[in-house]
C-alpha cells in the first residue's frame, strides 16, 4: 500500500500551488480558483488521515468541507457579478476603496 506520507506530500504541494496562485493571480475569479485548489489539498490530507487511522469521521468532515466550498463559491461568484456590474472589471488591485 502507498504510504500516507506520499499523499501528504502531494497535498502539501497542491496547497503550495494554491497559495502561490492566490498571490500572483490578479483576477478575482482566478483567485477563487486557487482557493478551491487549497481546499482540495486539505481534503486530500484529511482523506489520507482517515485511511491512516481507520476512522470514517474524517471522510464525513470532508463531505461537509465540500458543501461549505459550494456555498462559498455561490456567494463569492455572486459578489463578483455585483462588482462587475459596477466596475466592468474583476481585477482585485483597484478594489481598494474600503481601506481605512
Amino acid at each position, binding site marked *: 500500500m502507498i504510504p500516507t506520507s506520499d499523499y501528504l506530500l502531494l497535498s502539501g504541494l497542491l496547497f503550495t500551488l494554491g497559495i502561490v496562485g492566490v498571490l500572483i493571480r490578479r483576477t478575482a475569479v482566478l483567485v477563487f480558483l486557487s482557493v478551491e485548489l487549497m481546499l482540495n489539498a486539505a481534503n486530500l490530507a484529511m482523506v489520507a488521515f482517515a485511511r491512516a487511522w*481507520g476512522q470514517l469521521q474524517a471522510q464525513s468532515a470532508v463531505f461537509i468541507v465540500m458543501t461549505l466550498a459550494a456555498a462559498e463559491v455561490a456567494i463569492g461568484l455572486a459578489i463578483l457579478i455585483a462588482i462587475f456590474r459596477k466596475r466592468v472589471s474583476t481585477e482585485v488591485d483597484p478594489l481598494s476603496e474600503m481601506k481605512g
Partner: protein
Amino acid sequence: MILFLILALLSLVGGVLTIAASNAIHAVLGLVGTLISLAMLYVTLDAHFLAAVQVIVYAGAVMVLFLFVVMLLNAARPVSSRDPIPYVRELAVIFGVLLAGSLLLVLNGYAPPRSLANAASDLAGGAPGPVGAVLLSKFLLPFEAVSLLLLVAVIGSVALVLRPQVQEDPAPEPAAQPGRGETA
C-alpha cells in the same frame, strides 16, 4: 504505486495550469483535471463515496458555475497592465518554494498510528452507508448547520445579483457608476 504517481503528476500539472494559464478557461479546465485525479486518488484511499461526490459536486456543479461566470464576465482575456505591487510574482514563487520545502520536511516524517492494512478494514471502503451513518449521528449538528448555510447562500446570492427594481424612474440611466472610467 505507478497509478499513484500518474495521478499525482496529473493533479500537479492541473494545479500548475490553474495558477499559470493566461487564459482563464484553461485555468478552470486545469482545475477540473486536478479535481478528477483527486477523485481517483480518493478511490485508492478507500473513500468511494467521496470520490463520487467529488466528481459530481466539485468537477461537475462547482466548475460549471466557474466556467459560466468566467464566460459571463469575459474574464478569459489575460490581464495586461503592470502589477502595482513590485516583484510580487518572484516573491510569491520564492515563498512558495520555502513553504513547499518546509511542508515536505515535516510531512515526510509522518508515521501512521497503526498498520494501513488493519485500518483499511475499518473503513468499509468508504461506502455511502457507513459514511452517512457517521454524518447523521456524530456530525448531525454540523450537517444541519451546513444545510442552513446552503439555504442562506442561495438566498444571499440571489439577493446580491438581483437588479433593484426601480418603479418611479422609467429610464434609470447608469450614469452614476463610481470608478467606471479608471478601470475600463
